[in-house]
């Protein structure tokens, strides 16, 4: 990002800028405490809660000054944030002040997608939704209503729809994000990596990042521990086609050709085996099928990998030796958003196997065993018995998909097979930017009788809804408890800090009211959320009053490593770490990962890569006035050589054109040495097309719209999205 020049203010009038200031918005934002326990209009109150700007759920303390929301800081009691929020969390108050946020329930006036609305009451909106849901149930069965939901806020809606009989429930976090990783690790260790990741970065002596850009991707705990590791001199090894921020901290940077990570991983493992550098005792004790595995990787020498990856054999050897030197405190990070090339579950399995060779699973500085507080769930009546199978993975064509596949539900909606899907409920996930091939999403939605979106902002997907239900932002609502699985047990409370400024409602209220209208009131036996929370907490011997004051209650530390007493058991079919997988073999898939060269793009095109910026979450924060002030637009990263070839100068606005002729909005070219000449890079989340996002509309380029193609992972149905290629059209100046 170019340095912002203060000099320009010598030339312009100081009064020309907008007048937004953190706490001084035109929106009235009285504290929920105002008029209750604490008189309004005086002093500072602090109210603990937990953040919702991403899914990490960091403990936070909100400050209310003279009755108005002022700022949010980390809660020092919280083991995730350790008292320090990330920039998105710090800018979280902007969600409350967002001038574009949804204000009242809306019903579609014209064609789907026209974004022409009538403002209605909650009663009108929910009556209409309930009536159409009953009709779908009568004509097609409740399985014909699908739910796409992301984050803890979807808990109560999911419950209401399950009570109705819905079974097709998915989140893009599986097939468009972490799914391949979790499947690859589960096939190997019998357990997945979960979220927050069970990575013991804090204690790692060597950290290997493969495309994972910690520091730009701001998952708070991980970034804090990453900086801590850098500070104490841990060896950082980064393989990435882009010289990421993390690469700038690395002892070894591997400028890998995109799509060839699996070749690198196999070569690393070949070196560890051939040079006898792996943890022999660990492998002998816990490994299954090591001999077959060793035979399978024997030919994958660094010399074999060199023409594939572009990484010098000596660099492959020296990095493998470095990993071995630090074992078992060598953590080969599994990444998070890993739906890249369609071979993702096997690549993730190779990462799991590399960790297994280094003996890092279950060991300090590797992968710990997460623990959790024992807070029982609310005992609801049983859900109706499903009459049909889920629709997303017919015949188990993706044999290792252990969560529902969003794009599978989309396909069923499109084809009507194995049975028709006639209703979509979408909670807090912008499917238009999260799923590849927006065209298929739009086509699928044509077959719906009901499309409902619950969200805080008028996202692109909300534009396609029949009914839009505006939710209160996290600073205005209670949610379910966060009973996290982490390296120490704790429970956290989200509670309202200020009132919703308009006619927004919390998700628990929306779900409960809808359930009542559907005649499912018996599934919501509690009268309000506080009663629900008290009930759950008292079952665990905890008090809501204490949690309201502290925000977090921590449990006693428990063993998290094998040598602290965690049982060294692996819930795989063999009960061991599966170097050779009979499950995969039986499914007709490679029992040890096999590398296949990725397909090239059209001549002269660059591979489109995308990633995160530390100040934005997905496509959900670009209208947040504080975060958009920190970064209002993305730029396309281009290597100087490539820029020269295309006649592009730094800062010139260019459109990206993909292999299918799709054009992006114009964005500035950021000409930088920090990327391979054969790639272009965009930060995800920009280029909004939703009319209601007035402050983000048309600004920046959407990588998602350029992702017209995807490579489906045969193991679990994930959609590899780094398989699109772009060239440039220079804008007339």
């Amino acid at each position, binding site marked *: 990002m170019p340095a912002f020049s203060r000099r320009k203010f010598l030339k312009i009038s*100081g009064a020309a800028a907008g007048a937004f200031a953190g706490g001084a918005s035109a929106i009235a934002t009285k504290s929920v405490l105002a008029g209750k326990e604490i008189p309004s209009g005086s002093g500072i109150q602090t109210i603990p809660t937990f953040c919702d700007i991403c899914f990490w759920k960091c403990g936070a303390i909100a400050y209310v000054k003279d009755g108005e929301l002022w700022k949010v800081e980390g809660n020092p009691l919280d083991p995730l944030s350790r008292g320090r929020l990330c920039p998105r969390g710090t*800018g979280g108050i902007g969600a409350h002040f967002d001038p574009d946020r949804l204000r009242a329930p809306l019903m579609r006036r014209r064609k789907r997608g026209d974004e022409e609305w009538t403002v209605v009451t909650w009663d009108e909106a929910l009556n209409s939704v309930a009536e159409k849901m009953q009709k779908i149930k009568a004509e097609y069965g409740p399985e014909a209503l699908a739910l796409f939901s992301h984050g803890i806020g979807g808990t109560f809606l999911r419950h209401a729809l399950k009570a109705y009989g819905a079974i097709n429930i998915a989140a893009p976090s599986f097939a468009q994000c972490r799914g391949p990783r979790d499947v690859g690790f589960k096939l190997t260790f019998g357990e997945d990596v979960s979220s927050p990741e069970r990575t013991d970065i804090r204690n790692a002596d060597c950290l290997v990042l493969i495309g994972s850009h910690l520091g730009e991707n701001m998952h708070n705990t991980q970034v804090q521990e990453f900086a801590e590791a850098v500070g104490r001199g841990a060896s950082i090894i980064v393989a990435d086609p882009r010289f990421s921020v993390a690469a700038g901290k690395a002892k070894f940077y591997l400028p890998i050709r995109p799509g060839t990570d699996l070749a690198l991983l196999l070569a690393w493992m070949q070196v560890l085996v051939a040079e006898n550098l792996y943890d022999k005792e660990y492998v002998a004790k816990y490994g299954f099928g090591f001999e077959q595995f060793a035979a399978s990787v024997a030919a994958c020498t660094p010399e074999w990998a060199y023409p594939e990856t572009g990484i010098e054999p000596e660099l492959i050897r020296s990095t493998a030796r470095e990993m071995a030197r630090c074992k078992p405190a060598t953590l080969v990070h599994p990444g998070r958003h890993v739906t890249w090339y369609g071979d993702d579950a096997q690549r993730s399995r190779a990462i799991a196997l590399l960790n297994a060779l280094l003996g890092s699973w279950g060991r300090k500085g590797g992968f710990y065993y997460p623990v959790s507080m024992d807070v029982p769930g609310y005992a609801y009546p049983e859900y109706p018995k499903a009459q049909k199978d889920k629709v997303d993975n017919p015949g188990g064509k993706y044999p290792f998909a252990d969560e529902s596949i969003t794009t599978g539900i989309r396909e069923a909606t499109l084809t009507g097979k194995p049975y028709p899907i006639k209703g979509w409920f979408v909670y807090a996930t912008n499917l238009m930017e999260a799923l590849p091939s927006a065209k298929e999403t739009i086509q699928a939605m044509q077959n719906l009788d009901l499309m409902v979106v619950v969200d805080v902002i008028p996202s692109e997907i909300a534009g396609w809804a029949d009914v839009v239900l505006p939710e209160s932002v996290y600073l205005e609502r209670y949610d379910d408890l966060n009973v996290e699985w982490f390296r120490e047990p704790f429970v956290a409370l989200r509670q309202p800090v200020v009132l919703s400024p308009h006619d927004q409602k919390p998700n628990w209220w929306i779900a409960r009211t809808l359930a009542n209208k559907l005649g499912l009131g018996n599934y919501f036996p509690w009268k309000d959320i506080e009663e629900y929370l008290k009930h759950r907490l008292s079952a665990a011997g905890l008090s809501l009053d204490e949690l309201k004051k502290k925000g977090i209650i921590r449990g006693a530390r428990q063993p998290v490593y094998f040598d602290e007493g965690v049982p060294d058991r692996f819930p795989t079919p063999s009960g061991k770490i599966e170097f050779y997988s009979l499950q995969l073999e039986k499914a007709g898939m490679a029992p040890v990962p096999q590398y296949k060269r990725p397909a090239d793009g059209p001549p002269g095109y660059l591979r489109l890569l995308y990633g995160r910026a530390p100040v934005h979450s997905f496509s959900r924060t670009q209208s947040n006035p504080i975060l958009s002030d920190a970064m209002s637009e993305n730029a396309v990263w281009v290597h100087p050589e490539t820029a020269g070839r295309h006649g592009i100068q730094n800062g010139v606005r260019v459109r990206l054109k993909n292999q299918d002729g799709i054009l992006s909005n114009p964005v500035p070219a950021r000409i930088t040495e920090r990327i391979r000449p054969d790639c272009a890079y965009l930060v995800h989340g920009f280029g909004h097309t939703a009319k209601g996002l007035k402050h983000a509309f048309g600004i920046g380029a959407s990588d998602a719209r350029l992702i017209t193609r995807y490579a489906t992972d045969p193991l679990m149905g994930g959609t590899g999205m780094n398989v699109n290629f772009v060239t440039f059209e220079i804008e007339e100046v």
Partner: protein
Amino acid sequence: MARYAMVIDTKKCVGCMDCVVACKTENQVPRGFDRDWIVYDTKGIYPTLQTEIRSERCNHCDNPPCVYCCPCGASHVHERGGVVLVYPEKCVGCKACMAACPYDARFVHPEGYVDKCTFCVHRVEKGMNPACVSVCPTHCMYFGDLEDANSEVSRLLNERPGHRLLDSAGTKPQIWYLD
């Protein structure tokens, strides 16, 4: 006497801009303006590169040209710690200080006066760190008194090499970057 200074470990900084965002909410900095900002400094040819990421702001110089050139006495050195501040009510917005500052650290607030980093004196006087320091998720920023040989900032500058920005300008800046 005290001499407040900031020491920033560029090795740990990831340039996440949390310092920028925290300053904005703490100090209600108007939209479109920043009292602190991030600079990414990259040297070399791909793939052999070095990057230095810096959180920058007013350097609270010991030899502050902005104070010397102010015709209204608005820019001044605070009674404690050498903090350079502006009295908004005295400032006429003539921008002489902005022209004099080699760090581009000042801007005209929409209300007409010149504004910039205050080292969060309102917090420091209550014994707290500046907002940017206390929010930093990488713990790469340190604030303290250089007159106190036992302070963390003094200790860090003793232990590790560091540099200041535009040392040659002779302004004696008080933000130190650890290499």
